[in-house]
């Protein structure tokens, strides 16, 4: 008996967490998947009816906007944050005397809640009193910057705020990568008289491919989950011009009382994450075993 207990203690310690993950992650995903195939509205129903919720979803102009926005926002956010992060990392890698302080400054937004970031940028971008009024006050009477209230441009304000928040993190990732490149190779290249920019483009950057991949994974994950920032900065507006799948799902679940739509939109989000993360996780776990 005691022997059995001794042998099985590790399993029993792990069991509660494992069961919790089975129920609250996998069980819940299954529940949502199931409900997304029913006619659920205010209350969940459990008779499977096929893909009607997905048909409704893709027929909805609001979802269409939200899904398009995800790609506009996601691509701009990921590409610009990566370029900016890489640029900052390379600039900081030139034996800068104040590197520590600058790194702290570039990275602090990552410690803030998206709600705080959204609140701050909402004030800065306020057309009546913010940046626009400030620049006009300097004498440029015709300066206009009304993206926050312009349905065609509002999505880009979210891109700006998200980049401000996350690019420092990308910098930290790349900086760690730059520091791990073999110094001997770089020295040898410099002795050969190869200019610094060539050393970067031909030697250092190609050797950081895995870091590009992790930065991409993290940023795309942030983009798909973006919810707080939209709520705080634009509230999804003007109209629903800045809706993202996450805000669409929330609106359906908690203010429209349309559980079927909430579940099906959540499943689409899940699938987008799946297609990005699963190959990555798979290769990571495989390489660890090997």
């Amino acid at each position, binding site marked *: 008996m005691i022997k059995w207990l001794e042998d099985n203690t590790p399993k029993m310690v792990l069991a509660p967490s494992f069961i919790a993950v089975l129920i609250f992650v996998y069980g819940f995903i299954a529940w949502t998947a199931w409900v997304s195939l029913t006619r659920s509205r205010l209350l969940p129903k459990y008779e499977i009816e096929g893909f009607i919720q997905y048909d409704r979803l893709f027929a909805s102009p609001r979802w269409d906007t939200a899904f398009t926005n995800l790609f506009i926002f996601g691509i701009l956010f990921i590409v610009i944050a990566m370029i900016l992060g890489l640029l900052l990392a390379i600039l900081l890698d030139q034996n800068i005397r104040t590197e520590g302080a600058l790194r702290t400054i570039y990275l602090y937004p990552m410690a803030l809640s998206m709600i705080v970031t959204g609140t701050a940028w909402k004030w800065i971008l306020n057309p009546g009193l913010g940046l626009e009024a400030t620049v006009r006050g300097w004498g440029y009477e015709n300066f206009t910057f009304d993206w926050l209230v312009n349905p065609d441009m509002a999505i880009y304000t979210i891109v700006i705020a998200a980049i401000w928040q996350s690019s420092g993190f990308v910098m930290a990732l790349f900086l760690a990568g730059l520091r791990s490149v073999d110094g001997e190779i770089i020295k040898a290249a410099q002795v050969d008289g190869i200019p610094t920019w060539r050393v970067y483009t031909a030697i250092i950057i190609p050797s950081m491919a895995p870091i590009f991949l992790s930065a991409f994974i993290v940023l795309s994950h942030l983009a798909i989950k973006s919810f707080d920032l939209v709520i705080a900065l634009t509230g999804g507006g003007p109209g629903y011009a800045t809706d993202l799948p996450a805000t669409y*799902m929330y609106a359906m679940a*908690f203010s429209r009382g349309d559980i079927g739509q909430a579940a099906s939109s959540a499943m689409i989000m899940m699938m987008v994450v799946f297609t990005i993360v699963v190959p990555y996780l798979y290769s990571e776990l495989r390489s660890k075993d090997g």
Partner: protein
Amino acid sequence: MADISPYTEARPSQAGKIALRWGLYLLLGLFAIFYLMPLFVMVMTSLKSLDEIRTGDLISLPREVTFDAWRTAWSGACTGIQCEGMRPYFWNSMLIAIPGVAISTLLGAMNGYVISQWNFRGANIIFSLMLFGCFIPFQVVLLPMARMLGMMGIAGTIPGLIFVHVIYGLGFTTLFFRNYYVSIPSELTKAAKVDGAGFFRIFWSIFLPLSIPIIVVTVIWQFTQIWNDFLFGVSFSQAGTQPVTVALNNIVNSTTGVKEYNVDMAAAIIAALPTLLVYVVAGKYFVRGLTAGSVKG
């Protein structure tokens, strides 16, 4: 004689080098301004009176420094019908974050210890399944979780929010500890077993004392996550149990009365202070958590 290196002529002169250096620092300085500007604007706005905000501009220093907005934000600003400021919600967030961090860190440490040191068949599959839980968009669990909390009788309560944060924090805390313990040679555990130490004894006397750095990383990571959370807070709280992020959003979007931008900014800084403080005091560990969560994820 012809120069054989194609690059020699591109070498900058001494003067060019100095100019390049200055340009570099200038560029870095401009970026620093870009990142600091919103914080600077927030602080300045929070110290101005509403009149000065309407007439002045975003980045000017306050002509007359006033802390009225801070007082209102802390204890008088309205979140909908209630006008108690940020104070009660600030404490709510503490009440959620402290147990949430403690429980998820302890469980993560135990899980990581089992997975890395007491490898049994299936342990790696369990780890992969838990790891995957880190990556799901939480929207996919919101609806069933709302029902489950109702069934458990903790819907809209602080224990309910603690529960949710512990469950969905487990993946990351387990990952942190597993990756840390995996580098500790298993001979150590084996030797301790031969000496008659049991499972808990080995954990308590050998692993825990070695774990201080990873505990700091995990605690900071979890605290930042839970404190800054909005989605769970807004979905699973009710009037009176909302965390600080939800209260901030309600204050900013409260439609009653005049828009008090200075109060909004003071409230935003109050909501940001704890995590900013952690970042300033323990930035090294904060960064380590960020990179551990992504590079090794």
